[in-house]
């Protein structure tokens, strides 16, 4: 296979340039003054922080940032807690209805959010939770839960029950054995799954668009789209700076956890 590497490498290089270009272009544009953006494209990252100042001073940026952070963190906490309990139930116990629960989780996973946005809004309106952090959080928890349960189930199943049982032989209670032996081993899995839930909630646009329809209640993605729509191609520097601020944390988190989550997914697929 070692013969003639260069055509392959050349092909790979072309693919890399095409695939990475949008992210690169977003970064480069965000550092260029708008006056310059309107002349010919420049491909080197040089420039100014002016666009970031525009973003920070723009109406509702900070309230959107705060809303996004609150919803995201609350979603992570509640989703991890509820999913963890459910994952322990399905990975550690055999009980009637277990399979039915797993099937429900898989089915629910497939319900398109895009079809649910209409009635979710009506339901939240009825509970006086439209335009509220609580309302959006409930929705997000329900929609990240299937994936979180499924992934955590793999991680919990990956810790041998025998470890707990050994601790119980030494006189620990079952609960204590779980907290001192199993939980520490699960920490990396919980962190990875939590980061994944974070990414999902942070990125979410569809529900936030319809649930948070007052400017001061917007989350960052809704705020960005309003900025993008309002600018109508006149402030690409600002819009790209906003895009960068939303995207970069996600990419960093993603690079950190994707391998671990992939491993969790595989474990979930293999362990019974």
């Amino acid at each position, binding site marked *: 296979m070692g013969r003639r590497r260069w055509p392959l490498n050349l092909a790979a290089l072309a693919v890399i340039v095409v695939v990475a270009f949008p992210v690169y272009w977003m970064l480069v544009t965000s550092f260029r003054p708008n006056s310059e953006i309107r002349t010919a494209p420049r491909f080197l990252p040089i420039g100014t922080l002016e666009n970031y100042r525009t973003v920070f001073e723009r109406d509702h940026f900070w309230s959107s940032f705060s809303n996004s952070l609150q919803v995201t963190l609350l979603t992570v906490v509640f989703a991890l807690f509820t999913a963890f309990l*459910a994952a322990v139930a399905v990975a550690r116990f055999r009980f009637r209805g277990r399979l039915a629960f797993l099937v*429900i989780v898989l089915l629910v996973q497939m*319900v398109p959010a*895009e079809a649910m946005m*209409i009635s979710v809004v009506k339901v939240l309106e009825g509970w006086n939770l439209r335009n509220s952090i609580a309302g959006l959080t409930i929705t997000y928890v329900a929609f990240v839960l*299937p994936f979180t349960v499924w992934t955590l189930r793999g991680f919990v199943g990956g810790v041998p029950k025998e470890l707990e049982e050994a601790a119980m032989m030494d006189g620990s209670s079952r609960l204590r054995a779980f907290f001192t032996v199993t939980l520490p081993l699960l920490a990396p899995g919980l962190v990875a799954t939590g980061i994944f839930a974070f990414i999902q909630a942070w990125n979410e646009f569809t529900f936030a668009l319809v649930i948070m329809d007052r400017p001061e209640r917007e989350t960052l993605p809704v705020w960005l789209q309003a900025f993008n729509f309002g600018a109508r191609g006149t402030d690409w520097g600002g819009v790209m700076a906003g895009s960068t601020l939303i995207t970069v944390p996600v990419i960093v988190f993603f690079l950190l956890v994707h391998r671990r989550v992939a491993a969790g997914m595989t474990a979930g697929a293999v362990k019974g």
Partner: protein
Amino acid sequence: MTAVLSDEGTGPPPALPDSRRAGRPRRPRPARGRTGLLPYLLLVPALAALGAGLGYPLVRLVVMSTQEFGLRQQFGQPAPFVGTDNFAEIFGDPYFWDVLRRSLIFCAVNVVLTLVLGTLAALLLSRLGTAMRTALSVALLFAWATPALTATIVWQWIFDARYGVVNWLLTRLGGDFEGHSWLSKPLSFFFVGTLIVVWMGVPFVAFTLYAGMTQIPGEVMEAAAIDGAGAWARFRDVIWPALKPIFVVLAALSTLWDLRVFTQIYVLQQAGGITRETNTLGVYAYRTSAGNDFGLGAAIALVMVGITLLATLFHLRQMFRQEEV
């Protein structure tokens, strides 16, 4: 929101082909009395969250689809039951069939392109040296990690009529693309939409297939090469049969994700100004509701749920066939 909240491919685990019952000797089942209520109690919070955030809204969706739910109902009037009138209205409307056909074609084109390009990327990954492979992986991860909304906005910028880099490049290459608007004609609109969806979808396919390819024993590939099998023959006779279950799962998942594309179409519509010729099912349901006809919107949304459900059942059958859950 996994597959649900965003389109970036975090669905249930792709079932791996080698997952047949791991050979642990079965221990006798613990008597039900010993586990008792505990597992059920552990499920309560999850079931409550799913019920409140998803189950109940789903019931409401079904109810709304059988009601006349317009502007007056928005202001508190009771919503009269109209039976299947909303569905009759949809199915009798040629425009609905336009939208449905458009959604299915868009989905099919995206799935095929995503799978083909993903396979090529996986093959490339499997034959590169370490350094190039890492570089390509990182580039793919960038595309995978970018949120659907910012991805769409960035592509919108790349294809911007006045200052976009694509028009600039094509003009330099001798074309007449000065001020060319990509988003105001349906065909080029969907070209850009497809580019975005495929760009975001290829990495997941590529990584999953690459992981599968590394499981194929090297000797098999070498033996095939020694037997004089060319690249295409090696793919057809060795890789394809070995990875077929993964291909099936990836095709099912991509279909599910591409059927419900919303963000990309919605944002491009806002930018390009044409909606009637570019509506897909999800956007159409949303716009119908935003036009204050919630009963009709709900009915369209339910059709979408129905189609998704069919694809899901197919997918689940494959999964259960391949592994012990």
